[in-house]
């Protein structure tokens, strides 16, 4: 029974595929998996948008949307209908083809990332050896779509937003990769399925998640920072800063294309959360050995949604960074810390079992964190602003 609940989607797929002739079964299985992903993640997108609007409202002592349906839970449906029926305006001078392709490309690429994420036990669409590499290749190409959108719109705000986005995403791609490399070093594999499997072990009922090691915790923090920047979420939402750039790279988008951008942004958030869960939080494995009877996919989705809640919480708390602060933070703090983290992970590996490696590794990380935070991030130029040319 428990086994069946855990594998319910696999069994369902096999049952449906069983009606087809043998030659078609593999292809039909893949198509069904794709349909599953395309159905589930936009549903999660709707839930997280609602959660964000309600949660942010509460953080600002507002009520949030509460008109459509009981407690406003039907708000995403109303939003979807609205965006579908709105007029699709394309600027006269825009590059029409690129303008059209940009949102489509964004959503396609965002969905591609989910193909390699292990959603549950045996539940992964394509199990390739270098799935982490594939994921990052897909994640990095969202930049292309953002630049396509900004460039094709023929709008200064769009272009500025796209420039900012590209600068930011390239800067934060480095720490994102480096903080994930730690996991590859520890596991010895680029396969996400294998990474989850190595974390799915328990001593005294406690899991072997990567976050429960000094390098794993540091890596997770750096991954979270870089992931937030990579998905253009507040406080790193400079590319779409409403106060200075109207809406950034999607200023000239309306109607369903705008909705696609919105979907792409949230899908990026969900997939970054999914990867973070897979790498650091044990993927689909239960947080306690005693809770192993709960279906694995429930654990995966609850961890992803928990990450989304943290994303929303951070958005409700922090103001937007300035461009120079953003770059300083990436290149002077996060990247050195991830480099150090690589060294610490290697140290951990070669110091062998025992309490000594805990002490050495954590004290090294904390020491550098404190020193770098005190010196590197000090606001040296804080004071009255000086104007070089205008006086």
């Amino acid at each position: 029974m428990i086994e069946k609940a855990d594998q319910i989607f696999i069994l369902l797929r096999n049952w449906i595929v069983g009606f087809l002739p043998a030659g078609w079964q593999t292809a039909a299985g893949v198509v069904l998996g794709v349909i599953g992903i395309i159905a589930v993640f936009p549903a999660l997108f709707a839930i997280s948008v609602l959660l964000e609007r309600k949660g942010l409202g509460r953080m600002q002592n507002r009520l949030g949307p509460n008109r459509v349906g009981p407690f406003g839970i039907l708000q995403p449906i109303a939003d979807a209908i609205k965006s579908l029926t709105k007029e699709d305006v394309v600027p006269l001078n825009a590059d029409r083809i690129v303008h059209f392709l940009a949102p489509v490309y964004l959503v396609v690429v965002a969905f591609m990332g989910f193909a390699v994420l292990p959603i549950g036990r045996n539940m992964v669409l394509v199990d390739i050896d270098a799935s982490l590499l594939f994921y990052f290749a897909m994640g990095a190409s969202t930049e292309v779509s953002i630049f396509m959108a900004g460039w094709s719109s023929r709008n200064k705000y769009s272009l500025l937003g796209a420039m900012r986005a590209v600068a930011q995403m390239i800067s934060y791609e480095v720490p994102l990769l480096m903080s994930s490399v730690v996991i590859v070093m520890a596991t010895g594999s680029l396969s996400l399925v294998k990474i989850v499997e190595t974390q799915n072990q328990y001593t005294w009922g406690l899991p072997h998640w990567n976050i429960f090691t000094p390098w794993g915790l540091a890596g997770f923090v750096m991954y979270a920072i870089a992931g937030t920047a990579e998905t253009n979420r507040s406080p790193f939402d400079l590319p779409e800063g409403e106060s200075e750039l109207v809406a950034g790279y999607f200023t000239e988008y309306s109607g369903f294309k705008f909705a696609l951008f919105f979907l792409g942004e949230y899908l990026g958030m969900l997939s970054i959360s999914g990867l973070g869960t897979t790498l650091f939080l044990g993927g689909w494995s239960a947080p306690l050995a005693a809770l192993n009877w709960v279906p694995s996919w429930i654990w995966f989705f609850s961890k992803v949604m928990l990450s989304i809640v943290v994303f929303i919480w951070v958005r409700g708390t922090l103001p937007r960074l300035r461009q120079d602060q953003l770059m300083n933070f990436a290149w002077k703090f996060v990247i050195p810390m991830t480099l150090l983290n690589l060294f610490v992970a290697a140290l951990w590996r070669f110091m062998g079992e025992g309490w000594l490696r805990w002490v050495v590794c954590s004290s090294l990380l904390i020491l550098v964190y404190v020193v770098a935070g005190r010196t590197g991030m000090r606001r040296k130029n804080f004071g009255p602003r000086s104007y070089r040319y205008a006086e």
Partner: protein
Amino acid sequence: MLGEGILKGLSETAKNFAGSFVSKERLTTVEYPEERAPLPEATRVFPFLVYDGSDWQAGMRCVACQICEKECPPKCIYIEKSKDKKPDYVGKMQIYPARFEIDVSVCMSCQICVEVCPFEAIKMDSEFELSTDDRFGGLLHDRKRLAKSNEYYHSIHPTEAAEVDARLAEEKAKVEAKAKAAAEAAAAKATASAKAAEVAPAANAASKPAGGAEESKA
């Protein structure tokens, strides 16, 4: 240490989040159609015509002098004078507006019509839910729709309405005093002429209040 401020901020928002479910005082939102914030007394949205008594046509203060129509910057008032006359609040016969229309979509709520009105006939309303599905008729308010009682005026702007009432009562008293004085003077004159100008000081005394009444008329 780096990140301390972020943690402090996160705890603050978490406190707000949890607190908004516990204490109702935190939520400042007034859910509009169901509940309403009380309007401040000085609220002004759109003009209306004041009438005294219970009959809006008989008690209409407006005398169709058309000053407001001329002063209105966006020209949203349209007045047509009546052919006949009706008594105003002091009993003097005045013409009244046969048509008095204001276009809501044009009015800019500047209150200039109220400022220029010498008869305290047009005042600002606090009614703001004027949206309609009738694009032409619904936005052009006729005099019946514009007419609102003095009691209503008291209920929305009590201080201002009390001042206006005091002023009108004073004027009415003045007019009545003048009428009385005129009547007295006429009576005195009548008696004086009847007595065939025998007593000179009596005629002198009678001329004084009449002079005062002349002044007030100017």
